């Protein structure tokens, strides 16, 4: 079992690290997307004013929609929320009404929508730069990049299954995982790494299991097609049905008679009084200006996990404003409730800010678990080698190729990946706004940086490669708040003073991550310069798990 844990962990360890890091960041996808578009930062209004102003924001949104999309079959207004402070309006292009329901455009068959972001207090249209944003990291998390999405998902699925196996075998290997959880022996070389590995695994062990299993479920339509196919030949049908049947893109045909649309601010007020705990934030208007217009008002998320945190909705007649029959969501069966709870948990649908942070830290713990495991593998095998070769050069042992490969991948896969993400954020802010194919350049920068760092890891000595890349990523992250202030975003002083936490949170996290990485770089540097001072000293007796 120890063998299985060691080798399954090594085989896809770097992939798991990538999945954990990009996945953890994806819990804050909205916030990162917002940070990466500094033009939107002025959209912030004091949170206390949000309630009083919803009528005015709705009026702004309606004015813009009437100007931009008078013939559209469907409008949508999303009010600023705690995670995204801009007012958003979107509409379905008028010709798309000709597309049959379930047409293949857009995600899960929904025809694409056009979207504009507005300043909530003035209603001005905000022109944001084109950026791949956090969505690039999000896609990387579950289907990689640059290869066919289907292939990418098979690879991610394999990585997730291996992760599950490593977890199960890890719990069997580290039988005393919960007792060892309270033991940490710093500066004791391999033993410290083992303690760190056990600590980061145990502290969020249930999360690791649930996130790996639910990750598999989210890709199940593809990964388990031999199971799914007999029941649902089209896996999308399963997804749609499990989310409550009626597909959202069904649009009733208009009657053709023009009737002015009712004022929907009072309707919104009705909905807000009905759901005081989770107020509504989205209005969908179907067939605006037609006698068959209807208005749907809903929450962003409901409060019930078993229901996939499905929002409560109210439907109104668009012409008269009367409340129509609200379709009552059926309670899911026990099996579906389990399914819904797991997948909704994975995607953080439901999470309050505190819960979101908890998910984020659990994910980071997972990344640290993988990273410490990878380092542990290398130390276990090469402790002796370092001892002999770090003294006289003449005595240097020839390092087996496989071990050197692991060393190089460890540096590039852990520190190098973090640095590449840092470079990606810098690229988002520094590439000129009118650059052609700007989005592609951002992504190219990410991969160029990563590739260069892989070369660096292969050429430099192991510990100095670690120190260099940790320091590089540390500097990149630590100076992100400064970059933010200098390139048009809300600077840290301003955002903290104004309680603008969507932006301040990103900056503070970047600062903290940068400091942590620089500290790590400093520690490694001391070790690389001072020769053998503990970290690489092999233990006299073997430690369980190797």
């Amino acid at each position, binding site marked *: 079992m120890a063998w299985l844990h060691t080798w399954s962990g090594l085989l896809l360890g770097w992939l798991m690290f990538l999945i954990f890091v990009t996945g953890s960041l994806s819990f804050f996808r909205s916030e990162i997307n917002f940070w990466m578009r500094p033009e939107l930062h002025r959209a912030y209004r004091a949170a206390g004013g949000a309630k009083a102003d919803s009528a005015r924001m709705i009026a702004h949104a309606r004015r813009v929609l009437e100007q931009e999309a008078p013939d559209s079959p469907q409008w949508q207004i999303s009010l600023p929320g705690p995670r995204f402070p801009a007012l958003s309006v979107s509409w379905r292009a008028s010709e798309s009404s000709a597309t049959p329901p379930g047409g293949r455009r857009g995600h899960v068959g929904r025809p694409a929508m056009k979207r504009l972001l507005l300043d909530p207090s003035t209603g001005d249209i905000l022109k944001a730069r084109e950026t791949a944003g956090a969505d690039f990291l999000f896609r990387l998390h579950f289907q990689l990049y640059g290869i066919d999405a289907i292939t990418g998902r098979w690879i991610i699925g394999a990585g997730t299954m291996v992760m599950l196996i490593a977890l199960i075998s890890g719990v069997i290997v580290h039988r005393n995982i919960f007792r060892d959880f309270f033991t940490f022996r710093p500066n004791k070389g391999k033993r410290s790494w083992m303690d760190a590995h056990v600590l980061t695994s145990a502290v969020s062990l249930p999360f690791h299991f649930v996130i790996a299993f639910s990750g598999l479920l989210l890709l199940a339509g593809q990964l388990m097609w031999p199971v799914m196919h007999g*029941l649902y030949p089209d896996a999308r049908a399963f997804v749609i049905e499990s989310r409550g049947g009626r597909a959202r893109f069904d649009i009733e045909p208009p009657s053709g008679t023009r009737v002015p649309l009712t004022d929907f601010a009072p309707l919104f007020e009705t909905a807000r009084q009905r759901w005081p705990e989770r107020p509504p934030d989205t209005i969908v208007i179907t067939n605006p200006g037609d006698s068959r217009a209807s208005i749907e008002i809903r929450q962003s998320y409901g409060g019930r996990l078993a229901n996939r945190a499905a929002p409560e909705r109210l439907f109104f007649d668009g012409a008269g404003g009367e409340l129509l029959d609200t379709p009552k969501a059926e309670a899911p069966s026990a099996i579906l409730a389990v399914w819904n709870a797991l997948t909704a948990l994975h995607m953080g649908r439901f999470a309050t800010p505190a819960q979101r942070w908890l998910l984020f830290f659990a994910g980071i713990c997972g990344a640290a678990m993988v990273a410490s495991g990878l380092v542990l593998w290398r130390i276990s095998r090469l402790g002796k080698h370092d001892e002999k070769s770090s003294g006289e050069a003449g005595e240097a042992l020839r390092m087996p190729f496989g071990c050197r490969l692991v060393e190089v991948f460890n540096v590039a896969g852990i520190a190098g990946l973090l640095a590449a993400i840092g470079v990606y954020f810098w690229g988002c802010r520094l590439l000129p706004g009118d650059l052609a194919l700007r989005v592609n350049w951002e992504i190219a920068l990410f991969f160029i940086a990563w590739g260069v760092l892989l070369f660096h890891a292969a050429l430099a000595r192991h510990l100095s490669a670690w120190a260099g890349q940790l320091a590089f990523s540390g500097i990149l992250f630590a100076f992100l708040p400064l970059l933010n202030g200098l390139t048009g975003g809300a600077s840290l002083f301003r955002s903290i003073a104004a309680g603008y936490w969507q932006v301040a949170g990103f900056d503070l996290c970047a600062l903290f991550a940068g400091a942590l990485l620089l500290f790590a770089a400093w520690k490694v540097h001391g070790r690389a310069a001072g020769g053998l001072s503990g970290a690489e000293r092999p233990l006299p007796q073997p430690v369980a798990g190797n």
Partner: protein
Amino acid sequence: MKMRNMMDFAEKRPGMNIGIRGILAVFGAYGFGVLGARAFAGGLSPPLDAAALSVMLAFILEAGAIIWVFAASTVARAAMGLAAPAALFGAWLAVAG
């Protein structure tokens, strides 16, 4: 017995031993999970429940099978441990559905 000799041959060569277990883990365990899930839950009445339960079951069975493949003391035991229940599932599927 020829079969026995072949198994013995593979058992004693580390590369082959691990290679066979690896193939069993990747393909055998997957097939085991699929068969088991379809046998246990494929026939459930609302197709939505059947799909959800059988997929969850399939992943759990697959993970268990992978652990088994590497935990079994010999390659032969690893293979038989997958094949025997899989044959049962297959027979059940052939009879019931």
